């Protein structure tokens, strides 16, 4: 199978070029067109984006999302690779589930799927899952995600075991006892709204604990790698910055919703803004942006967390947490922060950044590299229209906003995974 994309530019150049893809790899640039030809409409080509944190809800919660809808949404967002979280029903703690998900996804023709598996059996935080078998089955990361790791000893064991396998342990860093019944950031807004607050210390205290555990393991020679998911507070970011300066093997991700929204959004009592960790303050958002710039933050992840409309129409105490927006993450980031961060840095945070922390080969557009790429329209403003979403969650905080940077074309393994009509 051969495919040539013409009329495209690379992000660091103004030259109009073409690229030919063959047998799943990049064959060459500006060589005579072969096979099917697609007009890239003058768009900017980049390696396909990598998402390290998405909830695709399969198996067991396919009313919210499934592999087909979630991976199609990812491809529409310019993503070529997605790591899905294991908090499904049943939990992804069994090698057979990992294999079946990978097999099913590979036949869909959308983004590639790399499942994360549970760190502990049933994500109960009590006994390690079969980490070695899970890795062999294709799991790329271990996490108990939103179940948080209340038992510090078990997390320590997991970091140690996974470290010996060269695997990342990612954590939803939040002390459940400090969170208590909190449904939004604790502060003047939560008090004004009469909603139970979740203090920033819930995140920073947990990050501090986990960093101490990691430092102790390193001192004993362990290669353990701790990845902190969806960092949301200025203080926790500061702790990670310090830990990196000490040379700890810690990485972290930040989500666009924590950069673009604050707890003020809850004033209308719309549970569409309920997310875990919660939307914080502008001070936190500013600190996170600073963290993106200075390298404290390793990558941007979306924590794509679809729920049904009926679930998100419940009251704020009852509604589940999560926002699903994988298909507009790049346009949102590019429109809001493209000028501030620069295109190269933004792309790095969504391609090479996640690949580096996962120890994957650096995404590349050179001949011989995997033919996973995206063509972005950086100029045309388009309105966010949830009715067009591929995800089953056809609603979003950004509905009606004008954004630039929409993907025109996403290619995965040399095959068209998304093409804008």
């Amino acid at each position, binding site marked *: 199978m051969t495919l040539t994309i013409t009329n495209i530019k690379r992000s660091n150049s103004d030259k109009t070029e073409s690229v030919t893809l063959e047998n799943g790899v990049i064959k060459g640039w500006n060589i005579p067109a072969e096979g099917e030809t697609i007009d890239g409409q003058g768009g900017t080509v980049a390696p396909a984006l990598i998402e390290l944190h998405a909830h695709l809800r399969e198996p067991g919660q396919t009313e919210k999302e499934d592999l087909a809808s979630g991976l199609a949404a990812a491809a529409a967002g310019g993503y070529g690779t997605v790591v899905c979280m294991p908090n499904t029903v049943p939990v992804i703690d069994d090698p057979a589930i990992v294999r079946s998900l990978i097999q099913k996804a590979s036949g869909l023709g959308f983004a590639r799927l790399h499942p994360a598996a549970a760190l502990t059996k049933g994500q109960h935080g009590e006994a390690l899952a079969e980490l070695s078998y899970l890795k062999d089955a294709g799991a790329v990361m271990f996490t108990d995600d939103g179940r948080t790791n209340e038992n510090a000893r078990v997390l320590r064991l997991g970091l140690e075991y996974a470290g010996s396998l060269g695997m990342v342990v990612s954590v939803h860093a939040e002390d459940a006892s400090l969170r208590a019944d909190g449904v939004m950031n604790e502060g003047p807004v939560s008090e004004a709204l009469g909603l*139970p607050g979740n203090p920033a210390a819930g995140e920073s205290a947990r990050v501090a604990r986990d960093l101490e555990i990691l430092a102790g393991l390193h001192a004993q020679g362990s290669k353990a790698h701790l990845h902190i998911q969806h960092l949301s507070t200025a203080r926790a970011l500061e702790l990670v910055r310090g830990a990196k300066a000490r040379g700890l093997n810690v990485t972290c991700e930040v989500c666009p919703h924590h950069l673009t929204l604050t707890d003020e959004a809850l*004033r*209308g009592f719309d549970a569409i803004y309920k997310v875990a960790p919660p939307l914080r303050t502008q001070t936190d958002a500013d600190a996170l942006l600073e963290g993106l710039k200075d390298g404290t933050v390793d990558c941007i992840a979306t924590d794509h967390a679809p729920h049904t409309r009926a679930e998100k*129409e419940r*009251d704020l105490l009852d509604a589940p947490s999560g926002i699903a927006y994988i298909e507009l993450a790049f346009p949102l980031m590019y429109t809001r922060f493209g000028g501030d961060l620069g295109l190269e840095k933004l792309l790095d945070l969504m391609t090479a950044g996640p690949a580096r922390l996962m120890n994957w080969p650096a995404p590349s557009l050179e001949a011989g590299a995997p033919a996973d790429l995206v063509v972005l329209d950086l100029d045309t403003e388009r309105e966010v229209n949830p009715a067009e979403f591929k995800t089953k969650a056809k609603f979003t905080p950004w509905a009606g906003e004008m954004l630039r940077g929409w993907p025109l074309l996403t290619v995965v393994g040399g095959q068209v995974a998304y093409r804008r009509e």
Partner: protein
Amino acid sequence: MTAAPASPSARPRHLLDFQDWSPERLTAILDNADTMLQVLDRPVKKVPALQGLTVCNAFFENSTRTRTSFELAARRMSADVLTFAAGSSSVSKGESLRDTVEVLTAYKVDAYIVRHHAAGAAHLVARYSGKPVINAGDGRRAHPTQALLDAYTVRQEFGSLEGKRVAIIGDVRHSRVARSNAELLPMLGAEVVLCGPATLLPSDLAALPGVTLTSDPKEAVRGAHAVMALRLQKERMGGGFLGSLQEYADTYQVNEALMAEAESGAIVLHPGPMNRDLEISGEAADGARSRILQQVENGQAIRMSVLYHLLVGRD
């Protein structure tokens, strides 16, 4: 998502909290309650103002007192009243709030009175029904008719709220009554002091205009014209907020000794239901300073006035 700025001319469609209400409008509700109290003193306690309208008492959380007060208020205004109690309804079968409200609206309900355990639920009913909504208590957020009846009771005593100091003592953290009073009373010229043990007194409430916080009850009542004891939920003990109920009562109980520190003519308020001899002593509840039963009577008049204000003379 923030409310439009209040203007004296705009007539709010709902009473969810006081955000889009002006002091002038709120004063009009208090003024009109005088008339409603006169109606309640007549042998025939009924006016035809809401004839033909159907008001739904939608109580997703149990409350006998508030529900009864609203129900009587609506009936005395000649409205038809549909009482919906979540415990014995489709909600217990898993129906969503939106579906419930849409079904009730299809019965041609003209206005809702909503009590719910979640802050913001009254806002959701307003959004889903498109009908006027009176918030009868949403979680720990707001209970605006309670605050209005408290304001009315203080005004009745002193002629005006201007320059008056109201101390509210107890579990402020979990109290919608405290939050609504802290929002309303400063709008009408009064000063509010919130008081309770530090664990039940969120420091962020100090950001509200006209509101100060203290954990010292004597400091709270000094110069106070009205002292309100909040109900202490005994269940809170499980949350670890307090050492013991005895310790709480010894420190924060509104009693004769504490009232001796207040202004000489100061009155005692309580939103009910009371835990006698816990947050309030029997003597204080029944004594000459107590206006607790007056609050109950005023509550009905205030609710009649709010219904009138929201539902009469609107197309």
